């Protein structure tokens, strides 16, 4: 199953410049592990504000690249954080798995002309 909505991705590539998309993907893939780490430590510290903020950034970035499933999962976690409810079950792990798949696909797309 494709993690990336091709039409959203293509529009992004077109409007920011095809030669530039690699740098943009790197920025996302470089920041995302930090966001995930922040979410984990926020969970451990019961810091719902930091949790919400990191989930918010993940949601926003995923949507930018057309990773809609990842974005929806991050959005759900953002709402948990906003409602100060950190009883999220395995949702963070599910989101991480979605991120890994999206990341693999973005790496592939990066090498395409």
């Amino acid at each position, binding site marked *: 199953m494709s993690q990336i909505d091709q039409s959203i991705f293509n529009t992004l590539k077109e409007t*920011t*410049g095809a030669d530039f998309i690699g740098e943009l993907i790197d*920025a996302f893939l470089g920041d995302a592990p930090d966001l995930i780490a922040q979410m984990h430590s926020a969970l451990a510290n019961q810091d719902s504000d930091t949790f919400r903020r990191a989930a*918010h*950034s993940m949601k*926003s*970035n995923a*949507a*930018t690249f057309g990773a809609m499933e990842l974005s929806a999962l991050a959005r759900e976690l953002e709402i948990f954080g906003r409602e100060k409810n950190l009883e999220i079950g395995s949702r963070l792990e599910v989101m991480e798995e979605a991120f890994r798949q999206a990341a693999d696909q973005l790496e592939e797309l990066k090498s395409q002309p």
Partner: protein
Amino acid sequence: MSASAEPAKLLVIDDNKVNRIVLSRNLEQQGHVVETAENGEEGLKKIRTQSFDLVLLDIEMPVMDGFQVLEACLNDVDLRQIPIIMTSAMDEIDAMVRCVELGAEDYLTKPVNAVLLRARVNASLEKKRLRDEQRKLFRTFATKEVAEELLRTGFSLGGKKITASILFADIRSFTTIAESLDPSETIDMLNRYFGSMFDAINANNGTVNQMVGDGLMAVFGAPIHFEQHREYAVRAALQMLKQLQVFNEQQAGQNKTQLKIGIGIASGEIIAGYIGTQSRATYTCIGDIVNLASRIEEHTKVALRPLLIDDDTRKGLGDSYKLEDLGPTLFRGKQHLVNVFSVEPS
């Protein structure tokens, strides 16, 4: 990419690196110069120290969020004119709408659509250009505060009744003076004289409303109401006389003609409003008081005092002014006697 409007200097404030890159890249592709900031505090610092044509502002940020940046800008008379476009996720549309109600120029949902981004940015820049032109025009006649107020409230052509003070000032025997000078000297002298008088009026919250030949009319307490308009008007007049002294010393130093002026002030209810059409309108004050201020100004020639005020104006003054009661006077075209006071320059 098709050509965009004139390139502008824009600031993107967003804590999210991907958003910053996407937005600035998009805007650079459209020919603009883009600066970025990672949070509200850094952004506000850049807004205060550099000059931007437009700001794109994220709402959700650490340190200082978009709301706080927006409010700081709207509350600052120097920053208020910079258009701000809020950028945020679709599910925060309520927050963005609130920002627009507060005074943000527009909003964009993220991820941004490049076509919408271009359209909103260009529309905002165009509106700003028009407002800047208007502002330049207003600033010639009014203080920064009055000009901003006019821009904020817009022009409604209807009039309203306001209590205000009207000031008239005239140069004594100007026709004779003008006859002895060549035209360029006359204009040069008038420009320097008016520049100096405008400063005194603007420094005391007045707005120069009309200039006819060598005379001027200024209004205090309208279009923005100030409770102390009487005192502002008198203070402006005293400052005008002081600045005229400086002007005359400079004239004397260069062997040039010195000027004498008369100033009259009257206070009370006037009808004020924009008269004209939407394309050409002037702020006009009408009423007995306007006429009275002009008559009192003429009376300075007879009374041989440089600054005369009516009783209503006197009532708004504190004890620190040196006043001389000149008694009741009947002015041309008036049905009642008017008590006139001379204010002595300190």
